[in-house]
């Protein structure tokens, strides 16, 4: 079969090249040195503040809130969006399956992800999810697309993404995030750092190309 032939040929060429090289007979086997910084140095308050600051630099909107106030916070943000929407039909929100029902504001028109079509995602006012990890230094939200985090396209097609993160989920450095994600390595993972953007025209940053143009993050304290 041509495929096995190609595979064998490529592997054979790789092996013969490595053999020809000076170093090939004795590739380094000692563990590699990783002298970069693994752990952050900030306390939890500084870490959360840095996370919020970095998100804002990406033009994301950040709301600090607490468990008793979360419902209202989400409702307020949704309410503001609605008043700006000029769609002929009443706006509705998509909520990721598994999102805690107790956090949903009662005033809003809600549709669960599992009952939404692609067309719904395209027309909705926005999508509401939780996430797995936040990275302070880079202002990144990581979704592993489990319960409450939505499928990958659910957080992509709508124009606005509302995401709730508990402050305990925020780490400082990228390596710390990878430590937390180690058990999820084969899940689909999406790292989101601000709204989608491009600088392809004269290096001018334009927010919102194909993914959500708005990102709202709710920082949920303990």
């Amino acid at each position, binding site marked *: 079969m041509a495929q096995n032939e190609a595979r064998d040929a*490529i*592997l054979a060429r790789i092996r013969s090249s*490595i053999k020809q090289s000076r170093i090939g007979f004795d*590739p*380094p086997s000692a563990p590699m040195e990783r002298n970069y910084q693994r752990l952050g140095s900030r306390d939890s308050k500084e870490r959360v503040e840095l996370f919020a600051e970095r998100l804002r630099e990406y033009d994301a909107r950040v709301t600090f809130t607490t468990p008793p106030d979360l419902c209202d916070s989400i409702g307020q943000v949704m309410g503001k969006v609605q008043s700006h929407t000029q769609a002929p039909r009443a706006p509705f929100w998509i909520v990721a399956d598994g999102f805690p029902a107790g956090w949903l504001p009662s005033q809003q028109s809600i549709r669960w992800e599992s009952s939404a079509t692609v067309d719904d995602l395209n027309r909705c006012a926005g999508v509401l999810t939780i996430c797995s990890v936040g990275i302070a230094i880079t202002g990144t939200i990581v979704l592993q697309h489990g319960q409450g985090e939505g*499928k990958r396209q659910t957080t992509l097609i709508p124009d606005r993404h509302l995401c709730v993160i508990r402050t305990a989920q925020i780490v400082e450095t990228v390596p710390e*995030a990878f430590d937390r994600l180690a058990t999820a390595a084969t899940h*689909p993972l999406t790292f989101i750092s601000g709204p989608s953007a491009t600088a392809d025209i004269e290096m001018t940053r334009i927010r919102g*190309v194909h993914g*959500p143009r708005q990102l709202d993050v709710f920082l949920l304290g303990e």
Partner: protein
Amino acid sequence: MTVRVGDSASAPSFQKAALPLLDDSQLRKNVRHATEVIQRKRALVAGELPDWQALRDAASAIKERTLLRLDEYLLQFEAACTAAGGRVHWARDAEEANRIVIDLVREQDAAEVLKIKTMTSDETGLNRALEERGIHPHETDLAELIVQLGKDRPSHIVVPALHKNRSQVREIFREQMHLPNLGDSPQDLTDAARRYLRERFLRVKTAIGGANFLIAETGSVCIVESEGNGRMCLTMPDTLILLAGIEKIIPTFRDLEVFLQLLPRSATGERMNPYNSIWTGVHPGDGPRNFHVVLLDNGRSPILADDEARQTLQCIRCGACLNTCPVYRQTGGHAYGSTYAGPIGAILTPQLQNLQHAQSLPYASSLCGACYEVCPVKINIPEVLIHLRGRITREQHSSLKPEALGMRIVASVFRSRRRLETAHRLAQLGQKPFVSDGWIRRLPGELSAWTNVRDLRAIPKQSFRQWWKETHHGAK
């Protein structure tokens, strides 16, 4: 086996290709502006990380070690990806890769495909091959869309349309998208692209892309992007086909923690780019049902044998070397006649083709070293350039070439004090016909390239050693 790297086999030499570009003041202005902006941003965010050098060291070491066991890692990737529901294909050269991709597209009866930006597909000439089979590719990265609609070529590996400014983009979009009243602000142009592409994202069911990282341990793929066109292509279609060079492998999931710090900061000067997608094979109920990875050799495996130049394959395509290069700054990417422009292109393009083509590229550098300084995986590009110049001289050029003869004569002069001192006297006398008022304004032959734009001060009557003999004679 025919290795192909874009159209570089038929491209003119760098020197020739540079000429019209040097006369294009608009293009040069666009290139200067874009590279200065990215450079400034890169330097800021790279400087922010106190462990930047340690990250570079780690990235370089990971890549180096991976290359020395590349066969094992590729097999590991294939096994893990296959176990997760993906299919792995192997392509010896560009033509084989294109054939595999086209066959997979035809299995879906697709007449059009979405494309995520992939320089590897430009390397193999995939778009042309698709069109020849009646399959229309829709480029979805904004810059690639500009290049495709403008019937242009990419000039930068990260920002392929950086040589175009807003009014040039507006003209292309006006005509090709039939939008006579389109404004020329980047916002207007981006909105136009969003509307133009959204309909296609929702309709077209097959996508083709590249990969930033293939993870051997898990069989996962990582794609780094900004606009969300990548996520669209990775999640909306039924079928996803990725074309990736064999050097894109990294051993473990954890290794990403290094590269995801280095790549965005080096490429676009962001702390993190808006979207990174990592996934493993097929995820039931989420994303494509058919997932293929085509592993492309196309001249890469022989490079592993060259101890000095193997580091070329460590490249993660961040483009930082292009942005900082004073030569790229003058000409932009088209002068390099290849998918891969700038310093990395000058070492990668000729090597992929076993030095049979693109022989002028290793000379398209003043060896200033700026590229090495910014490279996130520490490829010593000047060192590789010099090494390739040596290989080209030894393997490709006739030893009777005038330059080679001249170099041998000069070397022979330098091997003997007596010959050197005679040469000094000959030069001091021989220059006379060319000197006026203490300056040489025109030299013959190849050396006229010097005097075209620079005068040369006449050779002084007395060389240093002649003066020394006169003043310090007997002092040893």
